[in-house]
């Protein structure tokens, strides 16, 4: 069997799997317009499943995840904004449900710590580099003429 035939067979199989993926997705919800669909998918990917906590509600087969997806769908269909949906979940399940944490006082360190560490690291690196440059500059100064040939 030639390589081209094997390759073609693989590609056909892959196309078949991709075509089926949609049908086996956990969430088959279809919103009436592409805009709503995009917002729906965005929200269900950034809301955390409260039962299986390392998944978003879009990926979780848990019953509560499917109920919460239904809430998101109904709220979007009722004309609510993305922030309305987030606030709804926040009021019931707390900060835990947001995979994208809010910037509030008790979360502030979460947002500020990386920048602080980066600034400290940058400062240290800058000082080290400057010190080394001074050493090199000192090294390049001509040696005092001691009269040797």
């Amino acid at each position: 069997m030639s390589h081209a035939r094997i390759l073609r067979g693989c590609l056909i199989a892959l196309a078949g799997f991709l075509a089926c993926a949609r049908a086996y997705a956990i969430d088959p919800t279809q919103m009436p317009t592409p805009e709503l669909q995009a917002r729906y998918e965005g929200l269900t990917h950034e809301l955390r499943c409260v039962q299986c906590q390392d998944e978003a509600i879009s990926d979780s087969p848990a019953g509560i995840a499917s109920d919460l997806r239904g809430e998101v769908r109904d709220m979007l269909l009722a004309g609510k904004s993305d922030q309305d949906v987030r606030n709804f979940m926040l009021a019931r399940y707390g900060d835990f449900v947001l995979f994208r944490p809010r910037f509030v006082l008790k979360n502030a360190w979460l947002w500020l710590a990386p920048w602080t560490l980066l600034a400290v690291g940058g400062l240290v690196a800058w000082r080290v580099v400057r010190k080394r440059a001074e050493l090199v500059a000192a090294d390049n100064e001509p040696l005092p003429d001691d009269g040797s040939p």
Partner: protein
Amino acid sequence: MINRFLIPVVVFALLTVVLAIGIVHSPDKGIIPSPLIGKPAPPFSLPSLTDATRTVSSGALRGRWYLLNVWGSWCGTCREEHGMLLQVRQSGLVPLIGLDWKDDDAQALGYLQQGGNPYQEIAADRTGRVAIDWGVYAAPESFLVNPEGIVVYKCMGELTPEIWQKEILPRLTKAQASTS
């Protein structure tokens, strides 16, 4: 020259302390702190499981303490908790209000017939809509609500005698002591 080696050691020691505090204080991953504590109980009005002509509503429960217990005949831990609930009922200290979560009515009634009914009233939340308002995510869950309709405590998972003794009883007796 000594601080060249001292600085990393001190930084490492500090990091160890920070991480140790994090490990010791990290909350149990299975328990999400409820944002409802100290807030008004979410209002609801649902048909009664035991009497189809009646409704169970949060408004009618105002003015007295109650313990809202979220359960289902499909829920294994609820079975383990059932004996404790019957004891609570027998104690007469606080009325138990059941929220039958996403259950089949016939199965729920069969479950109570077999194990005994610890509840004063049972609201049938067939769609699970009210449970979402209460931030329920895994049965059993129990909410202690005061006469002003404020949620004062939430027990996630099985209501054990220890939790009853340590968390619920003190809140009930403290409130009674201050009113009398």
